[in-house]
């Protein structure tokens, strides 16, 4: 009897645990769905050919957000251009070459902490270093470098994890065949780690280009007469534009704000989707 | 081929067993020939050369042990090695019989033979033939032949019987021949034992092939 009662109790506990876990998951998923649906419903009304292809007029009250889309796109490319090689190379150095001593441990710790630095600090850092000290002015270049710095921490961390996940036996197999360390990294380790590295890099970049605070300090403009023609020009960007239209312009129709938010969301999400596709393609090719 | 090394070693052991058999056959034939001719030098040589037969046997035995230790033979492979271990003991002992015949020859000194040898060479011929065929049966794993050979031991036994009676007759007729007749009796007895050992080999052939111990055609002596 006692036993069956206990069994009964265990079953009840099991049910409660299951319920709690499901509830927690639901609490996570629900707001995401709510936000996406809400923005979709409110923003889709303002999406039009004109909205996507025209420059804003009358302080954004009329016209579209085309320069901001292009600016964000440029920013993305610029960030990738700086962050990807530096991030991957330092990850390779740290995992494959660096000796394990207190210095490398300190560096690892710093990198992990770098990811936790508030984005406005990055903005001010970019302003101080790139805009003022290096005299690049408020520009696409300065903003790309700033965002790259912010993305670096995550890129290095995820790349290192991807590199370390490559089995030791592959490295040993390659070295034992008389391959050099660099050949081993290039032909055995990197191809294996690539999906992980790409996913991490793209996610880090897409998160960085969604940021407002850093670019606020280093070069984003609200209204520009033309698209940037060189990296040293000022630029518009979606998050900053959204911030301005939502808070700084009196009488802005709500649907413009929601429309801008929707476009930003779509850009970021499609970038993430791209990462998943690339990752999947790599998996396919990789045997 | 799977287990190529084991097969290779087994084959080379088979060849060595045949070689040992050859040495033994030669020793038997020569011992009878030396007796016929009363060639003491030849008899001495046979006695001296017996050590080669013994060495060969120990060499094969050593290699069987190594093969068991290193190749871990199982089932029929194992029985084949065990059979070799038995067969070489039989062969070595046959060599000892040939040596024994030669020693008898030497013991007889310059005394002439009691009578011309007729049945004893026939016994030797038959015994050597049985030995030769049993070894062939072993190499070829020919169970039928192995079952046939021991039945022919009756021929050797019949010859032995005949020689025995003939020599007894000599001894009754003239007691002065007793010592010389006894020598020949030992010779004939040794030949009879050789044929018996050949049937032992046949039993090993059957055991290797079937895994069953059978006593085939037990000798009356």
């Amino acid at each position: 009897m006692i036993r069956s009662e206990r069994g009964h109790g265990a079953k009840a506990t099991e049910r409660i645990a299951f319920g709690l876990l499901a509830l927690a998951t639901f609490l996570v998923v629900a707001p995401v769905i709510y936000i996406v649906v809400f923005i979709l419903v409110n923003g889709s009304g303002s999406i039009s050919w004109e909205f996507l292809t025209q420059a804003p007029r009358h302080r954004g009250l009329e016209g579209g957000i085309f320069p901001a889309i292009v600016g964000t796109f440029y920013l993305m490319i610029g960030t990738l251009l700086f962050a990807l090689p530096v991030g991957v190379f330092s990850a390779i150095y740290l995992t494959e070459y660096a000796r394990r001593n207190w210095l490398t441990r300190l560096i690892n710790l710093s990198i992990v902490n770098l990811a936790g630095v508030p984005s406005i600090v990055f903005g001010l850092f970019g302003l101080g270093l790139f805009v003022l000290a290096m005299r690049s002015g408020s520009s696409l270049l300065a903003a790309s470098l700033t965002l790259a710095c912010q993305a670096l921490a995550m890129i290095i961390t995820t790349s290192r994890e991807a590199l370390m996940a490559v089995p030791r036996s592959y490295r040993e197999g390659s070295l034992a065949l008389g391959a050099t360390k660099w050949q081993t990294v290039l032909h055995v380790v990197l191809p294996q780690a690539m999906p992980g590295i790409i996913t991490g890099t793209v996610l880090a970049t897409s998160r960085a280009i969604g940021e407002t605070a850093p670019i606020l300090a280093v070069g984003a403009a609200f209204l520009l007469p033309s698209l940037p023609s060189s990296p040293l020009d000022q630029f518009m960007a979606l998050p900053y534009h959204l911030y301005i239209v939502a808070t700084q312009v009196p009488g802005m129709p709500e649907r413009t704000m929601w429309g801008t938010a929707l476009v930003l969301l779509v850009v970021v999400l499609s970038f993430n989707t791209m990462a998943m596709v690339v990752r999947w393609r790599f998996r396919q090719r990789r045997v | 081929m799977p287990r190529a090394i084991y097969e290779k070693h087994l084959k080379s052991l088979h060849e060595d067993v045949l070689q040992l058999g050859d040495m033994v056959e030669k020793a038997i034939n020569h011992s009878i020939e030396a007796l016929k001719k009363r060639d003491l030098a030849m008899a001495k040589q046979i006695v001296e050369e017996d050590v080669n037969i013994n060495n060969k046997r120990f060499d094969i035995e050593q290699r069987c042990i190594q093969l068991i230790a290193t190749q871990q033979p199982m089932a029929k492979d194992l029985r084949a090695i065990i059979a070799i271990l038995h067969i070489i003991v039989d062969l070595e002992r046959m060599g000892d019989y040939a040596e024994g015949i030669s020693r008898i020859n030497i013991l007889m000194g310059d005394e002439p033979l009691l009578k011309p040898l007729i049945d004893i060479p026939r016994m030797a011929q038959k015994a050597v033939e049985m030995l030769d065929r049993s070894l062939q049966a072993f190499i070829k794993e020919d169970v039928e032949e192995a079952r046939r050979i021991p039945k022919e031991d009756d021929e050797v036994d019949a010859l032995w019987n005949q020689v025995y009676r003939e020599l007894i007759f000599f001894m009754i007729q003239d007691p002065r021949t007793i010592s010389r007749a006894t020598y020949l009796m030992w010779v004939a007895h040794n030949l009879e034992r050789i044929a018996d050992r050949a049937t032992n080999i046949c039993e090993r052939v059957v055991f290797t092939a079937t895994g069953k111990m059978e006593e085939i055609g037990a000798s009356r002596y």
Partner: protein
Amino acid sequence: MVIFSGEIERIPAVPAPEKIKLRTSGVNLFYGTFQALRNISIEIPAQAITAIIGPSGCGKTSFLRLFNRMNDLIHNARVEGSVELDDMPIYDQNTDVVELRKRVGMVFQKPNPFPMSVFDNVAFGPRRHGKDNRKELEEIVERSLHRAALLDEVKDKIHESALSLSGGQQQRLCIARVLAVDPEVILMDEPCSALDPVATLKIEDLMRALSENYTIVIVTHNMQQAARVSDMAAFLMMADDKTGELVEYGPTNRVFTNPKDPRTESYITGRFG
């Protein structure tokens, strides 16, 4: 009338090879303060199979990795004494490790083909060493697969993933990959421990065939395998203060039938370890 006495000289079934390929003298190996090998002096004959046996943790693998300097990969590993390939000192400052590893190939415990095609796996070594002529590579791949007794089985899937092969085939592919570099010595670190008995016997037969042209050193904790496959056997000891000590070394036939050291005897008869 049965007269026999006297000792018999043992005639070895495998004649003792003359040339020494690998030689260590007084080798000590440390990982930090832990000593993994103790004063090992050994001469490994060319074109023969030498098996290293001993209980787990006795330093067999460390010993094997001396010869292609794979211990270098381990942080704070330190080697004392001399290790020579032919007459080239392996632990000399001027020794080119890459060159050494071309001459001394290695097959690992778990088959570790790269996640590439069969072809690319075998061509990996030659490509790294500067061969990029397609035709030449094709010849090397075919020859290596043939020597590794794998060609017939993979002829139709040379451009398929190596990971689609069975465990035994993968291990023979790893052997083919080593052969493609044309080494002189092949080190094998428990090459059959992840394989079934049939695949194991195939690898053993392959090893015998390869030993006609290559010097093979195999580490195994499968004593029967060491007995079956090797010409020479070395027994490494494991004990509190004796870990990594070479207890006995000699022809396999002798070591497995008549070991000189009682510790070898009790190990190979399964009485300890």
